[in-house]
């Protein structure tokens, strides 16, 4: 076995200049300290993304993005295709878990101020990835063409339409028409398997490259110099985390397989209690609670603009947090970040605990 390995290595060595790569990899070090546990979350995002790509490619084999056949093809995958239930459930569950982990990863980087120079671009590409993956979630959710997804899409795009000036045009572009229809389904499919993966791979490539080039950021004030080598120590520890998550996803899919749900009927009235997927619910509930008018401006418009502004500020945090740039503690930003987290958690919880508040 070892002989075989050696033979392969000797063949590839001069052709890929493997030794150069190995030297580089061997030199990489990862700091180890009280908070280094958070370093794993980026890798977990990558791992889950790979799972999505693989299960997504498998699902494409049997899925049909047409109003007449989308729902039926998903039912077919769940009922007739061997292990179709598993592939589909993994894809649906992992999508939700991935977005959750992205939020954790982002907030851990925020609170550890990993966005300090020279890592500003890592943060910016990271934030773009968050937006991309929210788009992945939104577009993918419609594809099974069931009742929940149809109406959640309608509600979500209605909110987009509220943005002043560009809202109407944006909504029409997203929907492929004036309302959710077959055109929307094909457009979302195009986004979900074509455009978004291409952009995501590009930006993710930059993001990972930056991380590899710049190494892991140490939190402000941490002076310990203990390091472990990236390869193989950190990678092996990373893999351990990945395996645990894999086992968890598998268990969840066996005991709680994802339902196909009833087929969407555009002429049916909106079912009561319709809401978007959990990662959008904090925005959804905010919109429900916002008063109809604030200083003669429509409350909804203000809220949507508020979210966009918030996102924009978050994107530019590396440029705004001057104190952290000087390696000084910036409690103001920490406090604001904490407030944002609390807000998101509370709003999300409210959606499920008090579904009837607001309009």
């Amino acid at each position, binding site marked *: 076995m070892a002989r075989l390995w050696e033979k392969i290595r000797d063949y590839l060595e001069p052709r890929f200049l493997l030794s150069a790569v190995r030297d580089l990899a061997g030199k990489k070090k990862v700091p180890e300290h009280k908070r280094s546990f958070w370093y794993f979350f980026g890798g977990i995002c990558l791992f889950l993304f790979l799972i999505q790509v693989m299960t997504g490619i498998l699902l494409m*084999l049997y899925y049909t993005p047409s109003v*007449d056949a989308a729902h039926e093809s998903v039912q077919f995958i769940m009922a007739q295709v061997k*292990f179709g239930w598993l*592939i589909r459930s993994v894809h649906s569950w992992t999508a939700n878990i991935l977005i959750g982990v992205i939020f954790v990863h982002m907030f851990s980087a925020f609170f550890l101020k990993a966005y300090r120079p020279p890592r500003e671009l890592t943060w910016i590409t990271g934030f773009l990835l968050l937006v991309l993956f929210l788009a992945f979630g939104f577009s993918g959710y419609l594809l099974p063409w069931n009742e929940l997804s149809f109406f959640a899409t309608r509600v979500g795009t209605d909110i987009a339409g509220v943005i002043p000036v560009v809202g109407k045009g944006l909504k029409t572009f997203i929907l492929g028409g004036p309302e959710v229809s077959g055109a929307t389904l094909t457009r979302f499919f195009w986004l979900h398997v074509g455009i978004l993966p291409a952009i995501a791979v590009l930006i993710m490539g930059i993001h990972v490259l930056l991380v590899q080039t710049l190494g892991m950021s140490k939190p402000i004030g941490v002076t310990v110099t203990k390091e472990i080598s990236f390869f193989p120590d950190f990678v092996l520890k990373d893999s351990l985390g990945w395996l645990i998550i894999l086992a968890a996803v598998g268990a969840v899919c066996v005991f709680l397989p994802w339902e196909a749900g009833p087929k969407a009927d555009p002429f049916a009235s909106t079912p009561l209690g319709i809401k978007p997927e959990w990662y959008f619910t904090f925005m959804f509930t905010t919109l429900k609670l916002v008063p109809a008018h604030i200083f003669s401006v429509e409350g909804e418009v203000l809220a949507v603009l508020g979210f966009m502004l918030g996102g924009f500020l978050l994107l530019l945090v590396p440029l705004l947090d001057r104190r952290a740039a000087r390696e000084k503690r910036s409690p103001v930003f920490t406090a604001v970040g904490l407030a944002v987290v609390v807000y998101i958690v509370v709003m999300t919880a409210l959606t499920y605990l008090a579904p009837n508040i607001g309009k």
Partner: protein
Amino acid sequence: MKRRTFVNLFLGGSLLGTVISFLYPVIRYLIPPRQAEAAAKRILAAKAGELAPNSAKFFRFGSTAAVLVNTSEGQLRAFSAVCTHLTCTVRYEADTGTLFCPCHNGRFDLAGNVISGPPPRPLEAYEVEVSGSDIYVSRKT
């Protein structure tokens, strides 16, 4: 056995086992299932010549029962076989050339209309399409 060798073997073995337990479902998934396609809006109901004139064939269409009738003049008609009164499955009665529901004697003509009995609405009619030797039934748009 050296510790190093044991660990490597153990790692390799468990890696192999894990990879196989993942590859097995994927390979089974890729092999085409018995029913080749998802039951779509259109279903192959019968082959040409399968139905004699003045007879009918019952089949499943989506999640409901449906019937393909070959009239005595040789015309092919398809309907939902679910009686609009209390959802019993209708039957084809050759001697009257009508669709008959045995539960409360509802009777439908071969346009789906109610001729007698309690059904309140006609039977939903489906499109019949003959393509070569295949007879397809699909929902009316």
